[in-house]
């Protein structure tokens, strides 16, 4: 390139830049729905570019289901086929509940990388960043549920509640998981590193999912433990999901799941938003 050409080129670039700057007029700020959708789209693009993050909702459920069916089936129920009827609804609840903690980890990563600051200086409805991400997580949870149920059916799971019962059960799990996620978003804003966040999340989730009626009938437990198992939200959800799948759920069991979900959202969504707004 000659000096003259270089000069022209750089003038051209500068003009292009000036034009781009001049045309950056401010549109009307987006409404809550469009900003939420923009964040949901971001989450979908992240799945496209980092497909490994789908491991937790694909491979993880398969391993869990196979592991627990064949490990405990013979010992607890006498046969794996029998146990599967009891176990599958519960293990589905447990798996999805455990996957919810990745929501907090993603948020925690955003904060540490700096993009969080950018979002917070935008003129948008603040919760949309979280709600958009949570909506895509609901898609992930549906995928995990579909994979587990398909595998279960192949292994001999026969839900007496039929298609509607199974769909209703999955829907209930999604409502609960969306609500549970707000605990992790709140924690994700408080805890400094990804590692410690994982640790805290596991400390909450492990007892919650294992000390429940997912694996065993609470009637076999000592009474002090049974007390905890019966009020454990995971048990409440597992009971309703099991009932729906086998066609013997009561409205009361289902209503309790909604009550627990509402309590989680009422407590943790405002807390998350408070922390989000005031994060230093």
């Amino acid at each position, binding site marked *: 390139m000659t000096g003259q050409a270089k000069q022209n080129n750089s003038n051209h*670039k*500068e003009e*292009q*830049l*000036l*034009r*781009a*700057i*001049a*045309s*950056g*007029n*401010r*549109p*009307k*700020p*987006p409404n809550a729905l*469009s*900003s939420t959708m*923009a*964040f949901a*789209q*971001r989450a979908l*693009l*992240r799945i496209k*570019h*980092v497909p490994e993050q789908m491991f937790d909702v694909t491979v993880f459920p398969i391993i869990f289901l196979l592991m627990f069916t064949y490990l405990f089936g013979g010992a607890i129920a006498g046969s794996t086929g029998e146990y599967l009827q009891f176990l599958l609804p519960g293990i589905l609840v447990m798996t999805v509940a455990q996957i919810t903690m990745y929501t907090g980890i993603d948020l925690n990563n955003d904060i540490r*990388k*700096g*993009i969080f*600051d*950018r*979002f*917070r*200086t*935008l*003129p*948008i409805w603040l919760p949309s960043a979280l709600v958009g991400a949570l909506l895509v997580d609901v898609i992930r949870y549906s995928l995990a549920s579909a994979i587990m149920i398909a595998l279960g059916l192949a292994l001999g799971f026969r839900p007496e509640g039929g298609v509607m019962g199974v769909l209703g059960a999955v829907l209930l799990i999604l409502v609960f998981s969306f609500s549970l996620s707000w605990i992790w978003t709140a924690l994700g804003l408080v805890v400094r590193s990804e590692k410690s966040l994982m640790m805290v999340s596991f400390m909450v989730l492990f007892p919650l999912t294992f000390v429940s009626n997912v694996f065993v009938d609470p009637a076999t437990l000592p009474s002090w433990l049974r007390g905890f198992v019966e009020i454990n939200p995971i048990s409440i959800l597992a009971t309703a999901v099991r009932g729906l799948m086998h066609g013997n759920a009561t409205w009361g069991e289902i209503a309790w799941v909604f009550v627990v979900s509402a309590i989680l959202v009422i407590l943790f969504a405002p807390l998350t938003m408070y922390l989000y707004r*005031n994060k*230093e």
Partner: protein
Amino acid sequence: MSDDKQTGDWAVEANGLVKVYGKERAVDGVDLRIRKGAVYGFLGPNGAGKTTTIRMLATLIRPDAGSARIFGHSLADEGAAIRSRISLTGQYASIDEDLTGMENLVLIARLMGYTTRQAKARASELLAAFGLENAAKRQVKKYSGGMRRRIDVAASIVVTPDLLFLDEPTTGLDPRSRNQVWDIIRTLVAAGTTVLLTTQYLEEADQLADRIAVIHQGKIIAEGTSSELKASVGSGTLNVQLLNSEDQLRATEILQNKLGVSVFVGSDSVSLSAQAKDASLVAEALGELARAKITVSDFSLGRPSLDEVFLTLTGQVVSEEPDAEEESS
């Protein structure tokens, strides 16, 4: 700008801003006046309080004391109004590294309120203007340092802000990329944007900023144009090269006595430098060296650089190493 309250010419007016972290006063009473359309440089070493001040002005953290107005809007009560006038390019890439350059800009444009189609058009326009059209479909984590900085600035001007905060825009860039970023900043200013930039590179403040605040341990210790700051430290620096390093101690003593200031010895132990209040003292000092039979191989009396300004003001040498641990919270 008709929607401004009666603010006159100020983009930023801050009074006594304070931010305390634990026992440390990260920002300790900062007053600021930034004129609309100006480039204002915040100069200081790591941990001086630059980032914390910017984050307060950008509504990201609340000051523990003090108040500020951005285009007349109160920082305490009108955060939303302020956010619609400003943009922040943080010290770390504030875009999603897993997404492509195009996807990042489209995301920001949609969050600004563009429709998807307008957002795509705007993103393409910006990518071309920043010389990134060929990298549009590449994930940002595969960008070079300079490209990353450019996409970051591009994301900040999807909607042209009235006030742009740039936190260490060129830290870690090679000279060519640095010049590109400087050109972008100059063009933005020419188009009417007010810029507040932080830097630990004195040359950068000198090159870009109309006015400079030197910040040290949370306080502004000097403020003015680059020439005012330079003038405030006297006529310049005397640099002396000795022929023999054995003479160093005696020479240092002579210069210290004659000039009445402390003398800095270079790492080669034959270059000495000292601030000179006036040129006649310099002549006397050099004469004294000759009488003491100290051979001077070279000397010069230079206009003070901002480095020397900083040195004189703080008594400390500016650390040139970018340090990622600064105020990252």
